[in-house]
């Protein structure tokens, strides 16, 4: 089918390059979050506590960072989960760069719009 449509094939090949690059960076992001979550969970298994009262967990950035200093299992797990939440954001950021490299200006704008909307949503969520 492809040989009948050279224009479509060209677009498709360019996209394949862009997608492979985003895929590789996404994989690093996923592995990093998985490793942090795993370390946190094993720490919890070994210590038998999250390191917080009533086996609770921190929900503010300050509490998470403070807990990381003393390697509290709850803080490490929350950091891992937070990294996981950021992997879709990473996907959008890398997509902007990838479209830019491909000189696909229309999609640089479209993807930037997605990022801005997403950041607004993340900000609303935090406040």
């Amino acid at each position, binding site marked *: *089918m*492809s040989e009948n*449509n050279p224009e*479509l*094939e060209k*677009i*498709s090949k360019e*996209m*394949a390059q*862009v*997608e*492979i690059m*985003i*895929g*590789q960076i*996404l*994989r690093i*992001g*996923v592995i990093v979050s*998985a490793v942090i*979550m*795993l370390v*946190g*969970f094993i720490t*919890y298994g070994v210590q038998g506590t*999250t390191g917080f009262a009533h*086996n609770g*967990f921190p*929900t*503010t950035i300050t509490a998470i960072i403070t807990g990381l200093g003393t390697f509290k299992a*709850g803080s490490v*797990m*929350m950091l*891992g*989960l*937070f990294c*996981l*939440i*950021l*992997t*879709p*954001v990473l*996907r*959008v950021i890398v*997509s902007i760069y990838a479209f830019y490299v491909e000189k696909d200006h*229309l*999609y640089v704008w*479209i*993807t930037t*719009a*997605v990022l801005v*909307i*997403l950041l*607004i*949503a*993340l900000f*609303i*969520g*935090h406040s």
Partner: protein
Amino acid sequence: MTQVIIMLVVGLAAGILGAILGLGGGIIITPVLTLAMGIDIKYAIGASIIAVIATSSGATIAYLRDNVLNLRVAMFLEIFTTLGAILGAVLNGILSPVVLYVTFGVLLLYSGYNMIRKLRSGTEVLHRATPDALAEKLELNSSYYDKAAGKTVDYQVERVPAGATVMFGAGIASGLLGIGSGAFKVMALDTFMKMPLKPSTSTSNLMMGVTAAASATVYFFNGSIQPLIAVPLALGILVGATVGSRIMQRLPARWIRIIFVPIIFYIGLQMLLKGFGVNI
């Protein structure tokens, strides 16, 4: 310990199924957590949102590498779902959930009916004589390599405005009700925009993580995400989604559709009944 093993296994199953079908896995996870394990609905919702992101990120790695999904379609439509998700959050308490449940329940049932029609006609890929002007302008037409069929499949998408409208509504519904993260997207892509099923489910996989991330920080900072539940679940899902994204590519599109039909009917019916106050 038992709870950890259950979470890992549930995650594994939800990850495989979610990766193949482009769904967030809520239909498996929420009932197991709330009904079978008696976990507070607040933590179940938090775990579900983490599940959507884990499924999405785990599966998308393979779908990007193997060029199955359509990145342009995903990013263009993501504008509408994320805007919808914000509006959904803002409209919380103003917009009637009943209207949303009924509307999307009916749309999903229609989508299921449409899928049966496609199964009966036997044609998975649409070839149009007159290409869609907007799809062409946005360079949305593409191709994907089908490992099951062993060939590259060219496809065109149509009815872009209709797809975008459904995505916007889906964003509102997901933001407001926290449901249908994947089902609505597959519906918009497959039923409305006539994209082949494999690019539809894999593109839905990429998109649902981005939409879920938009609302995930709310749950993260309000304490709905309990790490002792969410972490083992997420780890199970990441493994499951990695496996599922490989299985999906080797499954004939027709089989995926056959698995999809009862699930989309189930979700549609569940939503419709919820609209009338019946929980199943």
